[in-house]
Protein backbone atom coordinates (compact mmCIF):
# COMPACT_ATOMS: atom_id res chain seq x y z
CA UNK A 1 0.00 0.00 0.00
CA UNK A 2 1.22 3.53 -0.78
CA UNK A 3 0.15 4.81 2.65
CA UNK A 4 2.77 3.99 5.28
CA UNK A 5 2.05 4.11 9.02
CA UNK A 6 4.95 5.58 10.97
CA UNK A 7 3.60 4.67 14.38
CA UNK A 8 6.81 2.87 15.41
CA UNK A 9 8.90 5.95 14.52
CA UNK A 10 6.67 8.29 16.53
CA UNK A 11 6.64 5.81 19.43
CA UNK A 12 10.45 5.67 19.37
CA UNK A 13 10.67 9.50 19.30
CA UNK A 14 8.33 9.67 22.30
CA UNK A 15 10.20 6.77 23.98
CA UNK A 16 6.88 5.08 24.52
CA UNK A 17 6.04 1.37 24.29
CA UNK A 18 3.07 -0.10 22.45
CA UNK A 19 1.65 -1.37 25.75
CA UNK A 20 1.66 2.17 27.19
CA UNK A 21 -0.09 3.48 24.09
CA UNK A 22 -2.66 0.70 24.37
CA UNK A 23 -3.52 1.85 27.88
CA UNK A 24 -3.68 5.51 26.85
CA UNK A 25 -5.74 5.05 23.69
CA UNK A 26 -7.97 2.20 24.80
CA UNK A 27 -7.39 0.06 21.71
CA UNK A 28 -6.44 -3.61 21.95
CA UNK A 29 -2.82 -4.64 21.52
CA UNK A 30 -3.67 -6.77 18.47
CA UNK A 31 -5.35 -3.87 16.70
CA UNK A 32 -2.43 -1.54 17.40
CA UNK A 33 -0.05 -4.23 16.13
CA UNK A 34 -2.08 -4.46 12.90
CA UNK A 35 -1.77 -0.68 12.57
CA UNK A 36 1.97 -0.69 13.37
CA UNK A 37 2.82 -3.49 10.95
CA UNK A 38 0.91 -1.80 8.14
CA UNK A 39 -1.67 -4.58 7.76
CA UNK A 40 -4.58 -2.24 8.48
CA UNK A 41 -6.89 -1.45 5.57
CA UNK A 42 -8.42 1.68 7.10
CA UNK A 43 -8.28 3.84 10.22
CA UNK A 44 -11.22 5.56 11.88
CA UNK A 45 -10.95 9.32 12.58
CA UNK A 46 -11.71 8.69 16.27
CA UNK A 47 -8.81 6.19 16.51
CA UNK A 48 -6.51 8.65 14.76
CA UNK A 49 -7.67 11.41 17.09
CA UNK A 50 -7.03 9.23 20.18
CA UNK A 51 -3.51 8.28 19.00
CA UNK A 52 -2.68 11.90 18.10
CA UNK A 53 -3.87 13.00 21.54
CA UNK A 54 -1.86 10.29 23.32
CA UNK A 55 1.32 10.91 21.32
CA UNK A 56 0.84 14.69 21.00
CA UNK A 57 1.37 14.64 17.26
CA UNK A 58 -0.34 15.44 13.96
CA UNK A 59 -1.98 12.82 11.64
CA UNK A 60 0.76 13.68 9.14
CA UNK A 61 3.39 12.47 11.60
CA UNK A 62 1.73 9.07 11.72
CA UNK A 63 0.77 8.66 8.06
CA UNK A 64 2.96 9.09 5.03
CA UNK A 65 2.34 8.69 1.31
CA UNK A 66 5.02 6.84 -0.67
CA UNK A 67 4.64 6.51 -4.42
CA UNK A 68 4.63 2.85 -5.44
CA UNK A 69 7.18 1.89 -8.10
Amino acid at each position, binding site marked *: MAIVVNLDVVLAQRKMSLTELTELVG*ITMSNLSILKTG*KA*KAIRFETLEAICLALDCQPGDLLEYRKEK
Partner: protein
Amino acid sequence: MRKDLKFIRIIRGILLLISVVLLIWAVYDHRSAMIKGWYADEELKPLQPRFQNALFGAVISKPGDSLNIKGKDGYVFKLEKSDLVTGTVYNLHQESTLYSIYKTAMLVIGFTLFIISFKVFSKLYYFLDDSAKGEIFTLKNINRIKDIGFFCISLSILLWVGDVLAFLRTQELVRFTDYQMEYNFDFNYILFAAGMVTMVIMYVFKKGYDLQQEHELTI
Protein backbone atom coordinates in the same frame (compact mmCIF):
# COMPACT_ATOMS: atom_id res chain seq x y z
CA MET B 1 -28.30 -13.34 13.26
CA ARG B 2 -29.24 -16.08 15.73
CA LYS B 3 -32.48 -16.64 13.75
CA ASP B 4 -30.45 -16.95 10.53
CA LEU B 5 -28.14 -19.51 12.12
CA LYS B 6 -31.17 -21.51 13.26
CA PHE B 7 -32.47 -21.44 9.68
CA ILE B 8 -29.11 -22.73 8.39
CA ARG B 9 -29.21 -25.54 10.97
CA ILE B 10 -32.71 -26.49 9.71
CA ILE B 11 -31.43 -26.57 6.10
CA ARG B 12 -28.51 -28.76 7.22
CA GLY B 13 -30.97 -31.14 8.88
CA ILE B 14 -33.17 -31.25 5.75
CA LEU B 15 -30.08 -31.99 3.62
CA LEU B 16 -29.13 -34.89 5.89
CA LEU B 17 -32.70 -36.24 5.91
CA ILE B 18 -33.03 -36.07 2.10
CA SER B 19 -29.63 -37.75 1.69
CA VAL B 20 -30.62 -40.63 3.97
CA VAL B 21 -33.99 -41.06 2.18
CA LEU B 22 -32.27 -41.00 -1.24
CA LEU B 23 -29.69 -43.55 -0.08
CA ILE B 24 -32.41 -45.92 1.20
CA TRP B 25 -34.38 -45.44 -2.03
CA ALA B 26 -31.27 -46.12 -4.18
CA VAL B 27 -30.55 -49.34 -2.27
CA TYR B 28 -34.21 -50.41 -2.54
CA ASP B 29 -34.37 -49.58 -6.26
CA HIS B 30 -31.23 -51.58 -7.07
CA ARG B 31 -31.91 -54.48 -4.73
CA SER B 32 -32.23 -56.91 -7.67
CA ALA B 33 -28.74 -55.97 -8.90
CA MET B 34 -27.38 -56.44 -5.39
CA ILE B 35 -29.02 -59.86 -4.96
CA LYS B 36 -28.68 -61.30 -8.47
CA GLY B 37 -25.47 -59.66 -9.62
CA TRP B 38 -24.15 -56.48 -11.12
CA TYR B 39 -25.73 -56.90 -14.59
CA ALA B 40 -29.15 -58.21 -13.46
CA ASP B 41 -30.77 -54.94 -14.49
CA GLU B 42 -29.49 -55.30 -18.02
CA GLU B 43 -32.20 -57.67 -19.20
CA LEU B 44 -33.23 -56.62 -22.65
CA LYS B 45 -36.97 -56.76 -22.27
CA PRO B 46 -37.88 -55.62 -25.83
CA LEU B 47 -35.97 -58.61 -27.17
CA GLN B 48 -37.86 -61.14 -25.11
CA PRO B 49 -40.64 -62.03 -27.60
CA ARG B 50 -38.10 -62.56 -30.37
CA PHE B 51 -36.12 -65.08 -28.38
CA GLN B 52 -38.90 -66.69 -26.41
CA ASN B 53 -39.57 -69.30 -28.99
CA ALA B 54 -39.42 -73.04 -29.21
CA LEU B 55 -36.05 -73.10 -30.95
CA PHE B 56 -34.16 -71.32 -28.21
CA GLY B 57 -36.24 -73.06 -25.57
CA ALA B 58 -35.09 -76.40 -26.95
CA VAL B 59 -31.40 -75.48 -27.28
CA ILE B 60 -30.99 -73.73 -23.97
CA SER B 61 -33.21 -75.60 -21.64
CA LYS B 62 -31.43 -75.19 -18.33
CA PRO B 63 -30.86 -71.84 -16.64
CA GLY B 64 -27.24 -70.86 -17.14
CA ASP B 65 -26.95 -72.58 -20.54
CA SER B 66 -25.88 -70.34 -23.38
CA LEU B 67 -25.98 -70.22 -27.16
CA ASN B 68 -23.62 -68.34 -29.45
CA ILE B 69 -25.33 -66.49 -32.30
CA LYS B 70 -23.48 -65.05 -35.28
CA GLY B 71 -24.79 -61.59 -36.10
CA LYS B 72 -24.06 -59.03 -38.80
CA ASP B 73 -20.47 -57.79 -39.44
CA GLY B 74 -18.91 -60.79 -37.72
CA TYR B 75 -20.34 -60.04 -34.29
CA VAL B 76 -20.90 -62.99 -32.01
CA PHE B 77 -23.64 -62.83 -29.40
CA LYS B 78 -24.17 -65.08 -26.44
CA LEU B 79 -27.73 -65.86 -25.43
CA GLU B 80 -28.20 -66.92 -21.84
CA LYS B 81 -31.34 -68.23 -20.22
CA SER B 82 -32.23 -67.13 -16.73
CA ASP B 83 -35.31 -68.18 -14.82
CA LEU B 84 -36.45 -65.26 -12.77
CA VAL B 85 -39.46 -64.94 -10.49
CA THR B 86 -41.19 -62.89 -13.17
CA GLY B 87 -40.61 -65.51 -15.87
CA THR B 88 -37.94 -66.75 -18.25
CA VAL B 89 -35.60 -64.09 -19.57
CA TYR B 90 -33.02 -64.53 -22.27
CA ASN B 91 -30.09 -62.23 -21.67
CA LEU B 92 -28.09 -61.18 -24.66
CA HIS B 93 -24.35 -60.72 -24.24
CA GLN B 94 -22.12 -59.42 -26.93
CA GLU B 95 -18.37 -59.89 -26.89
CA SER B 96 -17.35 -57.02 -29.18
CA THR B 97 -14.49 -54.63 -28.46
CA LEU B 98 -16.65 -51.55 -29.04
CA TYR B 99 -19.29 -52.83 -26.63
CA SER B 100 -16.64 -53.51 -23.98
CA ILE B 101 -15.18 -50.03 -24.48
CA TYR B 102 -18.62 -48.42 -23.99
CA LYS B 103 -19.22 -50.60 -20.96
CA THR B 104 -15.85 -49.72 -19.37
CA ALA B 105 -16.32 -46.00 -20.16
CA MET B 106 -19.77 -46.11 -18.56
CA LEU B 107 -18.34 -47.82 -15.49
CA VAL B 108 -15.65 -45.12 -15.20
CA ILE B 109 -18.24 -42.35 -15.66
CA GLY B 110 -20.55 -44.01 -13.13
CA PHE B 111 -17.74 -44.20 -10.58
CA THR B 112 -16.76 -40.56 -11.27
CA LEU B 113 -20.41 -39.48 -10.90
CA PHE B 114 -20.60 -41.27 -7.57
CA ILE B 115 -17.43 -39.58 -6.28
CA ILE B 116 -18.54 -36.14 -7.54
CA SER B 117 -22.01 -36.55 -5.99
CA PHE B 118 -20.43 -37.53 -2.68
CA LYS B 119 -18.06 -34.56 -2.89
CA VAL B 120 -20.96 -32.15 -3.58
CA PHE B 121 -22.83 -33.54 -0.58
CA SER B 122 -19.81 -33.38 1.77
CA LYS B 123 -18.85 -29.85 0.65
CA LEU B 124 -22.44 -28.65 1.03
CA TYR B 125 -22.66 -30.27 4.47
CA TYR B 126 -19.40 -28.70 5.72
CA PHE B 127 -20.42 -25.35 4.23
CA LEU B 128 -23.72 -25.45 6.15
CA ASP B 129 -21.92 -26.72 9.25
CA ASP B 130 -19.46 -23.80 9.24
CA SER B 131 -22.24 -21.34 8.40
CA ALA B 132 -24.29 -22.62 11.35
CA LYS B 133 -21.31 -21.79 13.57
CA GLY B 134 -21.32 -18.24 12.22
CA GLU B 135 -18.23 -18.70 10.02
CA ILE B 136 -19.78 -17.64 6.72
CA PHE B 137 -17.42 -15.44 4.72
CA THR B 138 -14.28 -17.57 4.93
CA LEU B 139 -11.80 -18.69 2.29
CA LYS B 140 -12.75 -22.33 3.01
CA ASN B 141 -16.43 -21.61 2.25
CA ILE B 142 -15.55 -19.70 -0.93
CA ASN B 143 -13.52 -22.69 -2.16
CA ARG B 144 -16.35 -25.06 -1.19
CA ILE B 145 -18.92 -23.04 -3.16
CA LYS B 146 -16.53 -22.86 -6.13
CA ASP B 147 -16.09 -26.65 -6.02
CA ILE B 148 -19.85 -27.24 -5.74
CA GLY B 149 -20.45 -25.03 -8.81
CA PHE B 150 -17.71 -26.77 -10.76
CA PHE B 151 -19.01 -30.21 -9.74
CA CYS B 152 -22.60 -29.32 -10.73
CA ILE B 153 -21.44 -28.26 -14.20
CA SER B 154 -19.28 -31.41 -14.46
CA LEU B 155 -22.21 -33.58 -13.33
CA SER B 156 -24.52 -32.16 -16.01
CA ILE B 157 -21.90 -32.83 -18.71
CA LEU B 158 -20.97 -36.29 -17.40
CA LEU B 159 -24.64 -37.34 -17.13
CA TRP B 160 -25.12 -36.38 -20.77
CA VAL B 161 -21.97 -38.27 -21.81
CA GLY B 162 -23.22 -41.27 -19.79
CA ASP B 163 -26.58 -41.14 -21.61
CA VAL B 164 -24.84 -41.00 -24.98
CA LEU B 165 -22.62 -43.95 -24.05
CA ALA B 166 -25.62 -45.96 -22.82
CA PHE B 167 -27.39 -45.24 -26.10
CA LEU B 168 -24.35 -46.26 -28.17
CA ARG B 169 -23.82 -49.40 -26.11
CA THR B 170 -27.44 -50.55 -26.46
CA GLN B 171 -27.41 -49.65 -30.14
CA GLU B 172 -24.32 -51.82 -30.52
CA LEU B 173 -26.12 -54.65 -28.74
CA VAL B 174 -29.21 -54.59 -30.97
CA ARG B 175 -27.33 -53.92 -34.17
CA PHE B 176 -28.11 -57.28 -35.74
CA THR B 177 -31.80 -57.13 -34.89
CA ASP B 178 -34.62 -55.16 -36.49
CA TYR B 179 -34.94 -52.99 -33.40
CA GLN B 180 -34.17 -49.31 -33.64
CA MET B 181 -32.89 -47.30 -30.69
CA GLU B 182 -34.57 -44.04 -29.92
CA TYR B 183 -32.49 -40.98 -29.28
CA ASN B 184 -33.82 -40.03 -25.87
CA PHE B 185 -31.18 -38.24 -23.86
CA ASP B 186 -31.43 -34.63 -22.84
CA PHE B 187 -28.87 -32.28 -21.44
CA ASN B 188 -29.56 -31.50 -17.79
CA TYR B 189 -29.93 -27.72 -18.13
CA ILE B 190 -31.19 -27.28 -14.57
CA LEU B 191 -28.05 -28.83 -13.08
CA PHE B 192 -25.88 -26.81 -15.46
CA ALA B 193 -27.73 -23.58 -14.57
CA ALA B 194 -27.45 -24.45 -10.86
CA GLY B 195 -23.68 -24.79 -11.33
CA MET B 196 -23.45 -21.43 -13.08
CA VAL B 197 -25.58 -19.75 -10.38
CA THR B 198 -23.37 -21.33 -7.69
CA MET B 199 -20.31 -19.88 -9.44
CA VAL B 200 -21.93 -16.41 -9.32
CA ILE B 201 -22.72 -16.94 -5.62
CA MET B 202 -19.04 -17.79 -5.14
CA TYR B 203 -18.11 -14.32 -6.46
CA VAL B 204 -20.67 -12.75 -4.11
CA PHE B 205 -19.05 -14.62 -1.21
CA LYS B 206 -15.63 -13.46 -2.40
CA LYS B 207 -16.84 -9.86 -2.27
CA GLY B 208 -18.35 -10.54 1.16
CA TYR B 209 -15.02 -11.96 2.35
CA ASP B 210 -13.17 -8.84 1.08
CA LEU B 211 -15.66 -6.55 2.83
CA GLN B 212 -15.37 -8.55 6.06
CA GLN B 213 -11.57 -8.37 5.89
CA GLU B 214 -11.80 -4.63 5.30
CA HIS B 215 -14.17 -4.27 8.23
CA GLU B 216 -11.99 -6.37 10.55
CA LEU B 217 -8.82 -4.52 9.52
CA THR B 218 -10.34 -1.10 10.11
CA ILE B 219 -8.80 0.13 13.35
